């Protein structure tokens, strides 16, 4: 298998789109994670804090999902046209789940006290279902999608398999871990202690699920097997599990010692990055594994170029003001700052 990368526009777009999806996964990952963790914070005051910690930024986080969809439509329209019908039920489930958890951010503060539990439930259910659906979507793409000409060729239940259920659960656990380490950074005192404990538990669960998914993946398709275990590909692939192992040790060390507020979150981001890169190695150069390569699906040069120029100018600006927004609301959430 030839792993040499020729840097053309299509590759650049694949990398750009992968970057956008990765940014989405970590940003919305931790705020979906907060919804998944909500049941562990039954007290209203704690729930207020947890939601406040992302209230000013969740909207921007979710915009990366729109960029992911829009970018796929624009740069790889054929892949978009095949994947969306193939993944119809999990995509619709994700979108509707995001409706619930998105409005919960606003509605929760407007509901009467005796109705608030409804929007808490919407926040928990919406976040968990959206995360699970995203995991299922990932798994379904990895396990392969039937293509017929320029369209999806399978039925509408093909996406469901033991593997996709495992990847769904894995993503829920991973987002919960991200959320827990975020809260460890943003909260203080007793809620922070709780977040740290949760980070421990979900850390173990996440690492376990990464191992299970990783062991499963090479058996799905021979290409993955060769990718990971054949010489010389293993030279590229081997650092992935090694790095994940090292980072895992570092995560538990920082969680055990205490006093580290930001470190666990940053380490989990790094674990996500490495795992994501591992997925990239598995899939390259396919956008729909073993059926459609990025070149097959690419929109014409003129379309990709037009957007690429804009993306090169605009993405740094976007990252700039997004960082600024995070900076404005930096630091611990102060529980003393008023609750009527």
């Amino acid at each position: 298998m030839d792993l040499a990368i020729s840097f053309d526009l299509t590759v650049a777009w694949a990398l750009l789109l992968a970057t956008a999806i990765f940014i989405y996964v970590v940003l919305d990952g931790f705020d979906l994670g907060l919804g998944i963790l909500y049941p562990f914070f039954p007290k209203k005051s704690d729930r207020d804090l947890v939601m406040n910690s992302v209230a000013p930024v969740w909207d921007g986080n979710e915009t990366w999902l729109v960029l992911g969809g829009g970018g796929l439509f624009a740069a790889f329209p054929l892949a978009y046209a095949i994947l969306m019908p193939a993944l119809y039920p999990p995509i619709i489930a994700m979108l509707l789940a995001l409706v619930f958890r998105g409005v919960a951010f606003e509605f929760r503060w407007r509901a009467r006290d005796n109705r608030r539990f409804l929007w808490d439930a919407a926040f928990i259910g919406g976040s968990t279902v959206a995360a699970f659906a995203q995991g299922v979507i990932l798994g379904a793409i990895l396990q392969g999608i039937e293509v017929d000409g320029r369209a999806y060729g399978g039925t509408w239940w093909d996406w469901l398999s033991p593997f996709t259920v495992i990847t769904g659960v894995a993503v829920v656990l991973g987002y919960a871990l991200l959320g827990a380490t975020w809260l460890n950074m943003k909260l203080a005192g007793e809620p922070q202690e709780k977040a740290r404990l949760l980070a421990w538990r979900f850390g173990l669960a996440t690492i376990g699920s990464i191992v299970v998914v990783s062991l499963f993946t090479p058996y799905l398709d021979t290409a993955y097997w060769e990718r990971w275990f054949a010489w010389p590909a293993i030279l590229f692939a081997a650092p992935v599990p090694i790095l994940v192992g090292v980072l895992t040790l570092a995560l538990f060390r920082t969680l055990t010692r205490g006093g580290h507020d930001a470190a666990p979150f940053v380490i989990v981001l790094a674990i996500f990055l490495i795992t994501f890169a591992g997925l990239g190695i598995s899939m390259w150069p396919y956008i729909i594994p073993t059926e459609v390569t990025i070149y097959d699906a690419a929109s014409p040069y003129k379309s990709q170029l037009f957007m690429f120029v804009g993306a090169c100018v605009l993405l740094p600006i976007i990252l700039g003001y997004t960082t600024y927004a995070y900076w404005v609301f930096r630091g611990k959430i102060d529980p003393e700052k008023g609750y009527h």
Partner: protein
Amino acid sequence: MLDQFDALLLARFQFAFTVAFHFIFPSISIGLASYLAVLNGMWLWTRDEAYLRLWKFWVKPFALVFAMGVVSGITMSYQFGTNWSVFSDKTGPVLGPLMAYEVLTAFFLEAGFLGIMLFGRERVGETLHMVACLMVAVGTAISASWILSVNSWMHTPAGYTISEDGQFLPADWLAVIFNPSFLHRFAHTLTAAYLTTAFVVAGVAAWQMLRGADKNRATRTMFSMAMWMAALVTPVQIFLGDSQGLNTLEHQPVKVMAMEGHYESHPDGAPLVLFGWPNSEERRVDYAVEIPKLSSLILKHDLNAPLDGLDSVPEEEWPPVPIVFWAFRVMVGIGFLMLGIGLFSLWNRWKGTLYTNRWLHRWAVAMGPSGLVAVIAGWVTTEVGRQPYTVYGLLRTADSVSPVGAPAVGASLVAYIVIYFVVFGAGVLYIFKLINHAPRMDEGGAEEEGPLRTSGVTPATEVGRDAAIQGGAAE
């Protein structure tokens, strides 16, 4: 074959339902974002606390509307693929980049500065906070321009070639973006969003005044501002609508035939059908009330100009005539009612009865949702009028749909209907709760009454003066 037909109809209904719901929220959030920027600017300029109070009053419903717009919009960006995958495959190279630009230039801008706008006044200082308000307002307008460029291209495609695979390929980006109907549609739709918001604001203010808050300065201020919009912008909007109509006549004459209910050609001057029931089977308008030659005068500026009718095109090229005909009349009718209340407000302003004439206030309450109805009616006119095509004249709706079975489309449609009504119904109730009372002296902003509560930064409350006045208006 029957199954395919059902899936097509369900997919069309799903798109119509989800986009009509979605359209309501940006129509208001585009207008409110600009209104909030104006209010904040007026507060910084005049230091009149009524403006700050109004800002704090309207920013809360704005946050709700914005959130509902975001979540219903994410749905739209994926629906092209889930239900219209053939359309996506074929138009992706041309339309995809425009949508990507919408995300890059508008969505991120709005979302990035929204948090600072809602919660950041105390943290970033007033200047940067004003910048954030402006960025959100500008972002909503930029977003409208891209999506309307996409929509206009589907009506008046330009700047493309067609590949062997049947994909549309970009040939000239400027021609794609500034396609022949874009600027007309953009001006008309953006103005519609501002007017819609003005009538919502006017309706809320009038409601509060009828409930006893007619001395509340903030309520008076917003009523006056909204009535200026009604009086000055409605005539502009009617002019912009006329110009879009003429543009449609040039590029999509069949749509205009359906709007006018002209089944027959009129070689020497076409009548304007005011009302009637279009009967496509008999090819005539039943119970028609007509004014001779007026349609030719409006469309061609000549009483005797010939106008072709639907008999000049094959029936399979017709849009569903009654829907287009009636949706158009609803939109135009509301436009003239808006003009009427605008003129009536000028009369009352001149007589000094703007804040006391209860008939004006009752009319304004009744007109509160009128902009939303007009926006949806206008959208139905133009979109149903584009049928039977998705890309006008080039790609048929029946050839655009995904290979997804009717059960899947039907199930998701039911889910959308149930969830949208429950979730957005609740949202509308919360908005009613927020706007039911007149802006109080101690009106809290989003940061005090919403997420990130930080009490103690509320400006000093002067409960005394306005409290009694507002008593009647409070919940």
